[in-house]
């Protein structure tokens, strides 16, 4: 009954190749977009935005990025936290004006970038750094590559802690986002309206998902998947592994950089590199794509939602409803999230995305499953 293809004819190639070929699916997608853009901003408050929506949107971008690298191109990376830090610190430097020093003298200072372009610059700088740390992937694979990216994680965190230029020589080593606006509407700083912060991140999320989706079903995505499935075979059929792997690192780092920039500038407002972008962050995003489903766009969203909302939901149930002590709930959270990850990996190794696909398949046949 739902997802029925009967009567859903494609008469052109464009129709046949669209992302949502089934009409019901397409309309559902439009409705979700409509609600996210035109309804949600009017009904949300500070709590909704800061506790749920912003982290969800930002982690979704990071998960999209990592999914391109790990899920589509098969290059395992544990450097996500470090790359997010690159995005955050670049965004900070560009929004406060990059200062270039030579021999103890200020050579020149770039003008302050608009917040939108600062975030984009965060992505671009991270793409460069990502390519740099992606170079070893041409020689090493699998676990060994994971260890090489782990080195990137620790090196980058050390760098941002060590070199005071990155945090504008502040005494504490913290970076804090000054007030910045877009078309006169505040985007960063303490007086931001919740809807403004939400819409700003939503725009980035939608654009990222759109780009990611179209890249992964196009030529470059097919090359990545060929490399993932068997790199020697891919090379024989004419895929250039250098280009494929490095573009995957570049695109992936770009998205991760964007998410790092938003994470710092819009969501937290002030970060300290070791605490905000430590190895935990790398694992968190990796768990998101494993739970959500490797190699799927929807999986990135589902995984991000799962790991952002579940702790909050458990806290609400445990502390606010049942009145349990906060420490017991916090410990239970760890146990439940851990157990769910194991259950998921055993019961559904392909993640939430696979559950969603199976559900769709069933709905397609329902109510006559024969």
């Amino acid at each position, binding site marked *: 009954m739902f997802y029925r293809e009967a009567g859903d004819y494609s008469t052109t190639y464009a129709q046949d190749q669209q992302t949502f070929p089934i009409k019901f699916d397409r309309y559902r997608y439009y409705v979700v977009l409509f609600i996210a853009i035109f309804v949600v901003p009017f009904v949300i408050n500070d709590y909704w935005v800061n506790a749920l929506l912003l982290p969800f949107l930002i982690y979704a971008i990071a998960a999209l990025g990592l999914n391109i690298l790990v899920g589509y191109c098969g290059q395992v990376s544990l450097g996500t936290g470090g790359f997010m830090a690159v995005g955050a610190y670049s965004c900070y430097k560009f929004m406060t004006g990059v200062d270039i020093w030579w021999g103890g003298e200020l050579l020149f200072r770039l003008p302050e970038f608009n917040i939108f372009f600062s975030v984009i610059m965060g992505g671009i700088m991270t793409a460069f750094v990502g390519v740099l740390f992606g170079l070893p992937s041409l020689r090493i694979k699998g676990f060994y590559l994971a260890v090489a990216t782990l080195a990137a994680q620790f090196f980058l965190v050390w760098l941002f802690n060590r070199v005071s230029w990155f945090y504008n020589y502040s005494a*504490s*080593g913290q970076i804090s986002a000054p007030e910045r606006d877009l078309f006169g509407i505040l985007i960063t*700083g303490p007086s931001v309206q919740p809807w403004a912060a939400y819409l700003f991140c939503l725009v980035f999320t939608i654009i990222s998902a759109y780009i990611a989706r179209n890249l992964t079903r196009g030529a470059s995505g097919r090359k990545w998947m060929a490399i993932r499935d068997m790199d020697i075979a891919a090379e024989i059929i004419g895929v250039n592994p250098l280009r494929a792997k490095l573009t995957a690192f570049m695109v992936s780092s770009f998205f991760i950089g964007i998410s790092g920039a938003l994470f710092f500038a819009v969501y*937290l407002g002030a970060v300290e590199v070791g*605490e905000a972008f430590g190895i935990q962050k790398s694992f968190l995003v990796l768990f998101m794509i494993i739970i959500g489903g490797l190699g799927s766009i929807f999986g990135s969203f589902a995984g991000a939602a799962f790991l952002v909302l579940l702790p909050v939901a458990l806290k*609400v149930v445990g502390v606010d409803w049942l009145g349990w002590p906060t420490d017991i709930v916090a410990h239970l959270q760890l146990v439940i999230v851990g157990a769910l990850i194991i259950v998921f990996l055993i019961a559904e190794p392909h993640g939430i995305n696979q559950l969603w696909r199976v559900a769709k398949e069933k709905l397609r046949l329902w109510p006559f499953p024969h």
Partner: protein
Amino acid sequence: MTFKLTSMAVAAVMTASPVLAELVFPSMSYRTGPYAAGGIPFADGYADYFTLLNARYGGIGGVMTSVPECETAYNTEKGVECYESLKGSGGLVYQPLSTGITYQLIPKTTADDIPMHTMGYGRTSAKNGEVFTHTFNYPANYWDGASGAINYLLAENDGDLSGKKIALVYHNSAYGKEPIRTLTELSAKHGFTFNEMPVDHPGQEQKSQWLQIRRDRPDYVIMYGWGVMNQVAIQEAANIRFPMENFIGVWWSGSENDVLAAGDAADGYKALTFHGVGRDFPIFDDIQTYVVDAGNAAGAGDQIGTVSYNRGMYAAMLAAEAAKTAQEIHGVADITPSQMRDGMAALEITEEKMAALGLPNFGPSFKVSCQNHGGDGMVGMTQWDASTQTWSLISDFSPTDSELINALVAEDSAAYAAENNITPECK
């Protein structure tokens, strides 16, 4: 997509929180994670003091108090979630007990017109109340700690530290980096050599730092550590046979948890403090009667009288006194966060007040003003006795180098004001 529905269901649940006429003192605690050893007793002390006020005096000025707790695990993201969810409860003053969360909340609380008290942590230049209108860090801050340690060493060395070597072992974060500037200035002033040794979070790995200390042989080591880092450092110091009486921790590195693990080797270790230690105060009899015996002790109830517990209780006492001051200023019992700010800015702690509360000589007497949110910065020194397992105050609360610190505060707060377009003024 399904997650939208889930999030809506989750949030529908959250909107229901009771609003009664009571004074809410939210506790952003951490009873889990690598820093729980310090977070648990602090949260217990904070909650127990308000329980005592409710049971013995019927709240503050006739209005009962409540202490909703939210677990941050010392994590900034959870801190944001906690702040937003506690904001709905109408909390009067926030005490995040984490420098990282403090940095985030400074602009947020100012925009929301809610005061924040960062007692002995946070951003030191918040002492300048003209720039940081809603942040308070009385009675002492990180720079007072650094200067207090140097003053103590000056007194030990007959006022001359020239040619001495002093090393700083610090948590490589905003918190640990705070005293560097002060110590650099002080080293120029007093002529000692100053060395920095960062330790990365969470601080379980310190072999290389202590090897370096063994090689450099500094005369004194000052530590700005927190959580598991402290225990490890004291153990490592014992391993290289560094004389414990030359090893000084800031107040966050001076609780029972930090020294017990090293056993007898920790004997003689010193730590700064800005409040009394031990159970030798009349208030503990009240806590026993009205809180513990009534079965209302927070947590497991086994932390009473420890250093961190006393600090949590002290924080609660200062908050309650500020609430009283606010009630007097505004003539209403059920004060708002904005009125609470006025109370904090006019807070005066005297010997008589502390004695009346059952806390004679528990802390320094000080006065907060609209310009000075940091009090007078009086710090004392405590020393650990491993045989009796007690901390004792070995030097009274004495003033720090206020001239140097105030200059640094003025400089740093001016930079913050310029960055954020704040016109320094007394509101």
